[in-house]
């Protein structure tokens, strides 16, 4: 694929070489290659440092214990943010009832009210699927 490069008429080429200052949007820019090198290096360093800082401090980690259900990916959230409600896990013969702060599923995590204040693990609550019990599909494990 042949691409277009700079198209300058013959007449202007000589003139252009003679006074090769910036054209276009950079017309009034006065800058040396050394300064530009410095800017490029600084930009790259800023980007790398920012990514490194972000990765070192990704916020509080919320892990999900689906208690026999399908896996749910952990999340990172900053202080005071709300949980990004994940896709509910599924488990054969059970119906998902929500995420709980304790393993025995007594203290419900209220998605619209509770905010993240520390690293936490949320436990999936399950109740037996009545329809599945009726049709004899459910096993005895809970």
């Amino acid at each position, binding site marked *: *694929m*042949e*691409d277009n490069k700079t198209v300058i008429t013959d*007449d202007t080429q000589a003139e252009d070489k003679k006074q090769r200052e910036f054209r276009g949007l*950079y017309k009034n820019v006065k800058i040396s290659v050394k300064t530009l090198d410095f800017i490029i290096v600084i930009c*790259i360093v*800023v*980007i790398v440092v*920012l990514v490194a800082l972000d990765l070192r401090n990704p916020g509080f980690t919320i892990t999900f214990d689906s208690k026999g259900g399908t896996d749910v990916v952990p999340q990172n959230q900053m202080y005071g943010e709300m949980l990004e409600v994940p896709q509910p896990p599924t488990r054969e013969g059970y119906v998902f009832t929500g995420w709980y702060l304790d393993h025995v599923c007594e203290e419900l995590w209220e998605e619209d009210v509770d905010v993240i204040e520390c690293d936490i693990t949320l436990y999936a609550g399950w109740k037996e699927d009545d329809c599945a019990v009726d049709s004899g599909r459910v096993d005895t494990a809970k």
Partner: protein
Amino acid sequence: MTNPLKKVKQIGADYKQLDEKDKKQFWVDGILNNALYILMALFVVYTASVKPNFLTLGSFANLITQVAAYLPMALGIAGCIVLTGTDLSAGRVAGLTAAVAGVLLQKTDFANKMFQNLPEVTIGWILVALLTVIAIGAFVGLVNGFFVAKFSLHPFIVTLSTQLITYGIILWFFGLNGNNGQPISGLDKAYKDFVGGELFRLGNVAIPMYVLYAAILVLVMWFIWNKTAFGKNMFAVGSNAEAAKVSGVNVFWTTVLVHTLAGAMYGYAGFVEGVRSGSVAASTGLNAECDAIAACVIGGVSFVGGTGSISGIILGVFVLRIIFVALTMLGVDSSSLYIIKGAIILCACALDMRKYLVKK
């Protein structure tokens, strides 16, 4: 296109003839001129090492769909940059056209349908909607081009003005017919299939139809840029408008048409964006021009004017998307992404100027 293998061999032969000092300079130039590509490679390697699913077919498919979505706007804005200008209205124009397309192509039985008397969504009506939004985009581009060409106003001023005017129109449009600013949702399945329907599967991920449309647009734009008098005039005007005028190029119409063509591309970008987002809000398209401009500059479309290539734009969009897909996968915060975007644009401009000065 020159044979890359031949080019590498030539560089190798030239390198051998350099003295020690020049060899050192060769490496410094090589590293700095390709700083953003090296950065991308670093992110790719690091992300692949900590997130193994980054190098899967599904991830690649996701990258392709993102490139196809961002490419049309970059292809449009690149023409404005070749003319030593830019276009700040691109994102808002895409937002407006996304809203118009959304309204024209809502489900017939949707409860919150903004205009009840519109015809049923058929392929014909979809094409009418597509042409309408392209015409709207082209009209805004025409206005931009007219003011830039006729009064030699700087494109920054003109397009900033149309950006704000377009945003005002978007807000006004969202308030029409009792909609009261609600997002436009309930898009018809035929519209969704036309834009986002499965073209083929790559791994587990479906490649949508708009990837095909983006490929067609690339071919069309390549033809316009490289094989038509209009394309050659565009580069001539971008290189030196005065000289182009003396050579018989109609600078006024070239400028107007470049902006009009760019506007048409934003119109199409909006048509796709509605389906990609699932619904259209007043904020759709916000700051999208920043990504497009950054991609163009990374891809070698210089603000110096008169320089650029379609393949460079594609490469620029790819590089930018790879960086952001990698950073998103790594879990980099969205606030940091804005700072990184700004640093990339500044870095790309510095690289652009450096290459120009070093070539001198």
